């Protein structure tokens, strides 16, 4: 029987030699991610993990800082023309792709065309191009050439839209090397890196880690670390143990271990915490439940939620109050909105005025959610019963079934959220509440609101635009369309010897300035 152990040991040793740490960057930052990325192709990617990794490898026209301000990246400036129906971009000079080729206007056009081409299997990023002139023709396969993009010279490109789209510069479109497919074929992803970012894609060992190495010719200055290693650790307790043992430098603290981390004094000076750029709300579909049509009922429901208790109790402090639909750290956020106070007396009075004193006469209703939120809706159901006398049944539905039912507009009462796709409030206002948006889950329609949004999309001046955002948000809040719910926190841990790791409402900033002492 001893021989088997020998063979197994030799095999294991062989495996160990094959994956020797000698091939990995010596002074690399080690971070955890919760799963393999679905793909490392910036065109096809749609998932969260791929985003976290790719934003270190690719860049777009702009980037954003932690406080929400937009900074130029591959576009140093732009001119908005024709009342927002065209934008001329001035691209940064002296930028090289990881292949050594220069970044020029043709790469911008190539990226757009690849995103729209039907055979590219592109992810959600392609949606941002829908308003570019000629986009529909490329999508349908009628042509490969995107009509709305005009290359003026190597560092100037003009883009025309079918309707004003002043936010185009801040959309998260990542520019890729137009020469890479010609050089390496359709399988280039496993062999090379096609971005301009501070780190180059080096290797992906499925199930284990994704390795990036430093880009020494990065236009913003070479990173001070040799690379970044994203270790794939699905189990958060294991990841926390690895952080304790020094096998991780930075920990992305997911919800499963919030409590452990927040309550442990050891981590107190290593914690970074920020509200998440996710607008959470309690959806009330007025078409599916008659009492929701009355504004007093909606207001009563919102006032009977004790948000402070929710943050302290259910979330253990890992949440922030939200008084509107625009979250902090996003351009257009209104810090002056009145705080939503818990007011059971007023709620009861409103409900009585609406004709349902003590909840009498209200048909029973289900409050539905996906499994992760079942504790939360149990709280709501019991609260609405206790304060208002409503009969609310908790209905926990498997995620994909839930989404399918929402897609056909069958869900009446539900907590949900929308994560901002780009650092501007329009991401919320347009996708969540605009009449024709497919993501308008409450199916609320208001012509005045839509008009304000249409106007905002064409308003170039930021201050005027933000004023329009505030107007739109006020329409929503005055109509008590929804009950805003507390935002969850994004929490990170970093070792004391690791500097310049920054956490934003969108997650960790790209690691280009990080130093390990």
């Amino acid at each position: 029987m001893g021989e088997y152990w020998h063979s197994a040991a030799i095999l294991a040793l062989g495996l160990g030699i094959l994956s020797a740490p000698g091939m990995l960057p010596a002074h690399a930052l080690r971070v955890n991610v919760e799963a393999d990325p679905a793909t490392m192709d910036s065109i096809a990617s749609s998932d969260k993990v791929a985003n976290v990794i790719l934003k270190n490898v690719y860049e777009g026209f702009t980037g954003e800082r932690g406080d929400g301000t937009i900074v130029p990246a591959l576009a140093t400036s732009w001119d908005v023309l024709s009342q927002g129906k065209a934008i001329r971009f001035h691209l940064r000079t002296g930028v090289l792709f990881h292949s050594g080729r220069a970044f020029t206007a043709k790469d911008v056009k190539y990226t757009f065309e690849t995103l729209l081409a039907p055979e590219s299997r592109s992810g959600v990023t392609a949606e941002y191009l829908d308003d570019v002139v000629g986009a529909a023709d490329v999508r349908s396969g009628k042509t490969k050439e995107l009509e709305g993009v005009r290359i003026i010279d190597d560092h100037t490109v003009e883009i025309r839209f079918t309707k004003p789209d002043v936010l185009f510069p801040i959309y998260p479109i990542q520019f890729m090397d137009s020469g890479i497919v010609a050089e390496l074929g359709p399988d280039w992803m496993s062999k090379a890196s096609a971005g301009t970012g501070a780190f180059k894609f080096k290797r992906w060992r499925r199930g284990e880690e994704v390795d990036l190495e430093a880009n020494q010719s990065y236009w913003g200055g070479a990173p001070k670390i040799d690379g970044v290693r994203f270790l794939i650790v699905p189990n958060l307790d294991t990841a926390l143990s690895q952080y304790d043992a020094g096998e991780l430098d930075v920990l992305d603290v997911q919800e499963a271990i919030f409590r452990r981390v927040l309550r442990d004094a050891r981590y107190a000076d290593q914690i970074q915490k920020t509200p998440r750029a996710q607008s959470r709300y309690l959806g009330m579909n007025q078409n599916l439940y008659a009492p929701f049509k009355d504004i007093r009922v909606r207001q009563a429901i919102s006032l009977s939620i004790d948000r402070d208790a929710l943050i302290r109790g259910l979330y253990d402090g890992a949440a922030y109050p939200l008084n509107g639909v625009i979250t902090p750290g996003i351009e257009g956020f209104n810090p002056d909105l009145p705080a939503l106070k818990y007011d059971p007396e007023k709620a009861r009075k409103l409900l009585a005025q609406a004709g349902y004193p003590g909840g009498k006469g209200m048909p029973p209703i289900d409050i539905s959610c996906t499994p992760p939120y079942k504790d939360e809706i149990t709280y709501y159901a019991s609260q609405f019963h206790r304060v208002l006398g409503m009969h609310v049944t908790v209905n926990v539905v498997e995620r994909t079934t839930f989404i399918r039912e929402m897609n056909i507009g069958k869900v009446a009462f539900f907590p949900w959220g929308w994560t901002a796709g780009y650092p501007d409030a329009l991401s919320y206002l347009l996708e969540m509440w605009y009449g024709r948006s497919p993501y308008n889950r409450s199916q609320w329609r208001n012509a005045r609101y839509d008009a304000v949004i249409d106007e905002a999309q064409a308003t170039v001046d930021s201050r005027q635009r933000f004023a329009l955002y505030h107007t739109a948000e006020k329409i929503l809040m005055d109509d008590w369309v929804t009950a805003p719910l507390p935002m969850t926190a994004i929490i990170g841990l970093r070792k004391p010897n690791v500097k310049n790791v920054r956490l934003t409402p969108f997650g960790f900033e790209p690691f280009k300035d990080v130093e390990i002492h």
Partner: protein
Amino acid sequence: MLRSISVPPIFKFILRRMMGMLPILALVLVVTFLAAHALPGDPVQVMLSDHSANLQMALRLRAQYGLDQPLWRQFIAYAVGVLHGDFGLSFLQVGVPVTEVLREAVTISPLLALAALALALPLGTLAGVLAAVRRNTWVDHTIIVVLVAGLSIPNFAIATFLVYSFALKLEILPVAGWGSLEQAVLPVVVLAIPSAAYIARLARTFMLEALQQDYIRTARAKGLRERLVIGRHALRNIAVPLMTSAGVIFGGLVSNAFVVETIFNIPGLGRIAIDSIFARDYPVTMAIVVLFTVFFLFINLAVDFACVMIDPRLRARTLAS
């Protein structure tokens, strides 16, 4: 045809058993396919999540995955694909073939299981035999207590304790991962403990039974040294019943491996199976079920083959038919 060529009966035995596996395989394919399609949750929602409200993308994905075809046609495509080793595309890793997702994991899990078995088998047999031979002494009682502990304490508790002691406190072993020899120590040990305990219990029972037999009394009467009595005669006779339990032992090893792989972050089939279930990545789950079924069928065949080779009585009976 088979009668004219003189095929050794042992090959006929193997061939017959392999033909018997085919209907089981076909059944597994049908059942996993139907089960995956009966489950709640549309693949398109899995892939696109909230963005599945975008009808264009939803339609495109549906066509790419062949989900717009009638069910029977999807099954034929699936079955034909499996016979060619193509298990379709993953839902979670959009556009990636399932075989690509499983490629490296397929080598890791069997290695882990084998290493654990290589540790558990000698350890368990030794403990069981010792307990039986020194029956009702303090040796026997101690071993039984340890056995029961090994079987009763959940493996995640054992794992947590070992990780805490060796990785966090003493810092002589890494917390998780796979690839170096040190990373293999804790997972293999944690995986081996329940199997070793089970094997020890079986060995003890079989040994006690064997020691009551007449041939043992004869061997002792002949004047044989006790070590030979146990080592040569008794041990050989418990080999067959132990091996017959190999199927159960391997089943236990596989289900424990799922937990061990999750705790120690080993990218094996177990962890991928669990992750794929939670992520609703049905093609991957189905592929793993089919793989494990084939695996178990071959284990059973190997065990039967080994038993026939070791035990002359079985050999005669089986090959005569």
